[in-house]
């Protein structure tokens, strides 16, 4: 009985040690620091979300989306994206543009891009519409 108890303790210690090593080995989380009171005044927009992949939505989150105009009349969209997990993650994203009549513009820069997010990292992705006709956008994510 004593031997059995001892064996359980040894196994438990090994498990704990292994888990600690594993977690330490995988740690690639990002610590970030910024001004306590931001001086920027972003133009945040209300967004509508259509989730068809709950797993992906549980891994990466869109925190906010803001917009501005560049080069006079070109729409620029920026999304703040957060990795909800502790491990480094690759996700693909694409911006699509829509004109005043609701027609897709199929612009030259509508390409899938790979985003590498470190553990718990928050970063921004952005794009500029190459057509002055763009008034709306769609941001898509996939694994």
């Amino acid at each position, binding site marked *: 009985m004593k031997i059995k108890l001892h064996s359980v303790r040894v196994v438990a210690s090994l498990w704990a040690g292994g888990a600690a090593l594993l977690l330490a080995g995988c740690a690639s989380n990002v610590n970030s620091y910024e001004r306590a009171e931001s001086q920027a005044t972003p133009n945040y927009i209300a967004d509508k979300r259509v989730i068809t992949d709950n797993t992906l939505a549980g891994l990466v989150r869109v925190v906010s989306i803001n917009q501005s105009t*560049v*080069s*006079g009349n*070109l729409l*620029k969209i920026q999304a703040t994206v957060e990795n909800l997990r502790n491990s480094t993650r690759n996700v*693909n994203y694409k911006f699509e543009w829509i004109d005043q009549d609701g027609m897709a513009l199929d*612009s*030259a*820069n*509508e*390409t*899938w*891009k*790979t985003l590498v997010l470190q553990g718990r990292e928050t970063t921004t992705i*952005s*794009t*500029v519409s*190459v*057509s*002055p006709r763009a008034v709306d956008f769609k941001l898509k994510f*996939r694994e």
Partner: protein
Amino acid sequence: MKQTVSSKLLGVLALGAMLTFSGCETATETRTVDAKGPQAINTAAINSQDWANAADQLINSLLSGGALNNAPRTPAILAVDRVINNTQLMVDTDLLIKKIRVALTNTGKVAITNTLGLGERAVVASEAAELEEMQSGKKAKTLVPDYTLYAKLIQQTDKNGKVTQNTYAFQMSLVQVKTGLTVWEEEKQIAKQTRGPGAIGW
């Protein structure tokens, strides 16, 4: 009874083996994928998605920087200068430049001239201008470009054990012809790591 079970078992095994081996002889399969998407075959070289991403990043930078806001006219006349390929790859640099040209033309802020610069297009355009001069007897009016676009591709290869990293730098500059000043510059990099055969895990 025993013999029947054995023969059934043999039959099942034979069928399984047949299916397994026939599975190995699959015919060549081709599927259409999004050339600008993650399904594009990823290699140590610059693939179709990399070209698209590099072009997109450069365009975003150029348009966000506002360099074209001070253009003397709209659309500003742009001539594409030489594109230097200093990589080990035999690539057509139009894979990058054409995407930039299309995007800039779509903005309506730039019109690209073909009467200056290098290549077939420039020769055809200049010959067309000469022909018009000959036929009309009037000096053909050629628009002088406001800007020239210059690009360079560089490859750096680093190796550590079985891992090879190819870093491709896409450099681009916009020069104001009148002043000779560079009004916008950008460098975007794409790094690709490839692990050699025989390694276990990544």
